[in-house]
């Protein structure tokens, strides 16, 4: 049987991979994907915690699942806004690469 630690390790790995994606990829879309991975890693941990630590009533912690639900929603909204910005950006600068966004600095 998988233990809590299994899930947490997978979650941690997923989070780290997402972070790596943010750090390495220069296409803003892919960076978003990395961010989605990070959020989902948190979701996995949340669900795992809720399943492994049932409440006094013997049920999994549904509060956590509500949070997961919210996170998914927020993530979707974030992606929508993000993609809208990317579209506007592409129209204005013909690029979606982060290294081209360096007029504001120092």
């Amino acid at each position, binding site marked *: 049987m*998988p233990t809590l630690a*299994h899930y947490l390790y997978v979650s941690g790995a997923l989070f780290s991979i997402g972070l790596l994606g943010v*750090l390495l990829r220069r296409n803003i879309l892919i960076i978003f994907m990395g961010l989605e*991975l990070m959020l989902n890693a948190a979701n996995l941990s949340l*669900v795992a915690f809720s*399943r492994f630590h049932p409440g006094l009533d*013997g049920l999994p912690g549904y509060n956590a699942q509500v949070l997961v639900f919210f996170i998914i929603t927020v993530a979707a909204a974030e*992606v929508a806004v993000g993609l809208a910005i990317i579209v506007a950006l592409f129209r204005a600068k013909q690029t979606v690469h982060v290294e081209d966004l360096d007029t504001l600095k120092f």
Partner: protein
Amino acid sequence: MSLALFWIFAILTLLFAVGVVVFRSPVSSAMSLVMSFVGLAALFVTLDAFFIAVVQVLVYAGAVMVLFLFIIMLLDLRTEERRPVKLAAWAGGGIVLAGFLVAIARVISSLPGATNTKPEILPGLNDVAQVGVALFRNFNLPFQIIGVLLLVATIGVVVLSRRELK
């Protein structure tokens, strides 16, 4: 048995997650992301969180992914992914990754009860109903706030991507 399933889905998830990061083509990355999320949904199922698993597939595979692909196609980003990843980025990423992984590993290894297996819970549970109760009774206010959030996001998307008429 369940351990095997866990590993299958976990590896699926992680492998495709890596794929998101390493594939050169945005489309490949997007498709990997979908696969990773499907794997994740399966992991949710192993945790008896059916509702979340379904939402995961619906929202991500159904909505978000389409959005991603749509934008990729719209902007025709295929040709752009030819710039090599810089050494500095690799090094930086590596450092952060290593540091973070070490931290997570140390935290998890010190977590009490981390090696417990899944405790028994009440059988025959209606997962959706429980989430619904929590969502609409207990967490009504945050739920409404999320609604506002979506409204704001909608306004934002409209404002930002509106084409002005000549």
